[in-house]
């Protein structure tokens, strides 16, 4: 009885939704949960904008020749698809939505270390997004450089590159501030007894990510500033006509943008590491190995950028070194995969939507990771560089990995965030549709790339027709799955049954408070006495 009384006491009834009302209480909020939801709204809106752009790109490629648009429109579409998906969706999504919402709760804190800077980050994110948005409709037209803004083309093209790179710079500032906030929070605000080895693995994932955000983002910041200054003052640091070096631009760009792919994947790996043990009802296998391999990925992953430039004319020595480092980064990634599989082994597995999304994460990420090794080797890279193989590979990592990890997070934390439950059977159906559509779509792109279909082309030779048709067909199934999944979640938001506080029997702290959580998270800061995976039934069985 005493224990129930105790739990009653730490659960105030008013949720953070009901605490204050009105639009200002949201856009000027300092509550980490509300800021997380503010990000969520924008991330979903931008995700669907990116999906629509991708849909039209695929529709254009359904048949050879011009189908529904001209080449310039196609160039703008793949550029905007890239900018929106990379800078507005996949980089910020998990750290800002789930990191903001759940990291403080999972470590037993009332908020992040710097709530006001957290709000500033969100405003910067919105400002950056607005600037990118305006770059589409003003100036000489939407950017057509690809999301990479490669010099010297980005310095010469007449379209509105300066505004877009300025927007990316602002988004970078937002990302750095979020990183600083979450690292400080993890260091300073852990509840008593929350030792490093008791942190939930999601916290470890976000922690490693935040370091990359702090250390790598400034480099793209300065690079974007240089492109911006070049467009207005003709400084010429990357302009070969003035002695500048475009290869240096590529280095500067990828010094950030390769680690950025780990900003995308590490938090998703954190979600998987948190979800798998809950539904296997088993302690995670190799806790320390997973936690430290995340840090290792962050560290080694920051040194592999040159593998994007094997055909750029950099030295053979650099090629060999970057290729070697690329192979090394596969080791900590594989450690994680093996540990997840080992956790499932002999667990009492409960099949629920979050687990299914995690399983598909492991499957798709493995394909993405192994194909990454193929293109990371020097000889195959000559053949595969700038073909459809590359977008196929990184969509397996970014969408199959990060995207499905994000979806796992949606389905895992949905009842906690909104206090309602979605329809689980529909969620599983949506997962099946998504998985089928995804593989038809992107696996065809692997085959296209292997056969030599160049990426970013608006047209193609007749021999690629069947595979392009298949890929476009797959994209329709994928979009149907997305609509089904988000429709189901959206319906659950309003019509779903009331969720219990702990529907999955999780043992991390967010499941010990009410759904949705109260503003102050905990009435009393909890004292932590065990690790993140000590399930009750395991304790009872000894």
């Amino acid at each position, binding site marked *: 009885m005493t224990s129930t009384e105790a739990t009653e006491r730490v659960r105030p009834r008013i949720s953070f939704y009901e605490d204050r009302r009105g639009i200002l209480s949201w856009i000027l909020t300092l509550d980490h949960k509300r800021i997380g939801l503010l990000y969520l709204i924008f991330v979903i809106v931008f995700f669907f904008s990116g999906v629509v752009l991708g849909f039209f790109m695929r529709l254009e490629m359904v048949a050879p020749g011009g189908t529904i648009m001209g080449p310039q429109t196609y160039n703008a579409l793949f550029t905007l698809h890239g900018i929106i998906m990379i800078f507005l969706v996949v980089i910020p999504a998990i750290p800002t939505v789930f990191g903001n919402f759940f990291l403080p709760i999972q470590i037993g804190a009332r908020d992040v270390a*710097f709530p006001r*800077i957290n709000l500033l980050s969100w405003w910067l994110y919105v400002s950056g997004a607005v600037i990118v948005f305006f770059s589409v409709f003003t100036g000489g037209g939407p950017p057509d450089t690809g999301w990479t803004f490669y010099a010297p083309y980005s310095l010469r093209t007449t379209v509105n590159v300066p505004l877009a790179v300025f927007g990316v710079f602002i988004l970078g500032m937002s990302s750095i501030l979020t*990183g*600083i906030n979450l690292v*400080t929070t993890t260091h300073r605000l852990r509840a008593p007894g929350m030792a490093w080895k008791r942190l939930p693995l999601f916290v470890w994932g976000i922690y490693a990510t935040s370091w990359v955000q702090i250390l790598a983002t400034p*480099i793209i910041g300065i690079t974007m500033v240089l492109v911006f200054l070049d467009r207005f003052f003709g*400084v010429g640091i990357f302009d070969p006509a003035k*002695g500048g070096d475009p290869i240096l631009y590529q280095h500067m760009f990828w010094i950030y943008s390769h680690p950025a792919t780990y900003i995308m994947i590490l938090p998703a790996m954190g979600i998987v590491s948190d979800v798998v043990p809950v539904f296997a009802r088993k302690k995670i296998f190799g806790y320390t190995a997973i936690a430290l391999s995340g840090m290792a990925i962050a560290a080694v992953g920051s040194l592999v950028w040159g593998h994007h430039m094997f055909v750029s004319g950099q030295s053979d020595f650099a090629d060999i070194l970057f290729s070697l480092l690329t192979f090394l980064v596969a080791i900590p990634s594989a450690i994680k995969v093996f540990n997840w599989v080992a956790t499932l082994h002999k667990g009492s597995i409960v099949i629920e939507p979050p687990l299914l999304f995690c399983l598909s994460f492991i499957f798709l990420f493995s394909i993405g990771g192994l194909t990454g090794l193929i293109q990371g080797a020097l000889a195959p890279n000559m053949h595969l560089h700038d073909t459809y193989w590359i977008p196929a590979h990184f969509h397996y990592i970014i969408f199959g990995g990060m995207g499905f990890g994000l979806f796992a997070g949606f389905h895992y934390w949905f009842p906690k965030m909104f206090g309602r439950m979605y329809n689980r059977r529909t969620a599983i159906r949506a997962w099946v549709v998504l998985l089928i559509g995804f593989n038809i779509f992107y696996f065809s792109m692997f085959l296209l790339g292997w056969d030599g279909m160049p990426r970013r082309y608006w047209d193609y030779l007749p021999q690629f027709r069947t595979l392009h048709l298949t890929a476009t067909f797959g994209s329709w199934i994928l979009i149907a799955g997305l609509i089904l999944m988000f429709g189901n979640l959206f319906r659950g938001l309003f019509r779903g049954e009331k969720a219990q506080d702990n529907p999955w029997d999780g043992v991390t702290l967010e499941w010990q408070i009410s759904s949705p959580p109260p503003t102050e998270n905990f009435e009393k800061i909890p004292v932590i006495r065990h690790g993140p995976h000590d399930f009750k039934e395991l304790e009872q069985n000894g």
Partner: protein
Amino acid sequence: MDDAKAPVFEEGIDYTGAKLGMWLFILSELLLFGGMFILYAINRYKNPDDFHHASKELDVVLGTLNTIILLTSSLSVAVSITAVQKGARRLPMVLLMVTMALGLVFLVNKGFEWTTKIGHGIYPNSPALLARPKGEILFFGLYYIMTGLHGLHVLIGVCVLFVMLILLIKDKLNPTHFTPLENAGLYWHLVDIIWIFLYPLFYLIT
């Protein structure tokens, strides 16, 4: 594991956390300039002679003067922090005003330097500059960007110190609560130390 230690922090202001956040921010600033220093290093390695000749044209006296000014300002901001810690009221205000004044003098000198160069027709994309060897175009391009970016940081630093001055006047800083000023001081030292590297790289490499 029951004796596992984690920081116990419940209420009030976490000074250690505030300083940790500031150091992380400084780290990101250093990397921002780090990108520029990489560009400088590579371009100088490729064009040693042009950099040598171009550097000769910069005003070493003005550069040295600015170095002395900025170093002195770092001293005055450091002393102002100690003064606040010891409970002084007027002294830290005076010292902050001295620091801000020195920062502004630095910017004025920089402005003279730039306008002189621009008067000689040397500015990005100018016909006179484009007629020169490519290494010199790069040198002056880097010169304008790096000192410009640094100047912007000096300006931001002066603004931050101004806010600190207002906090002092409003009696918001005292021997138990001085972390904002300490963090502002850290930022000012960052601005200073970046200049310590810019100075030899642009003025003293001939």
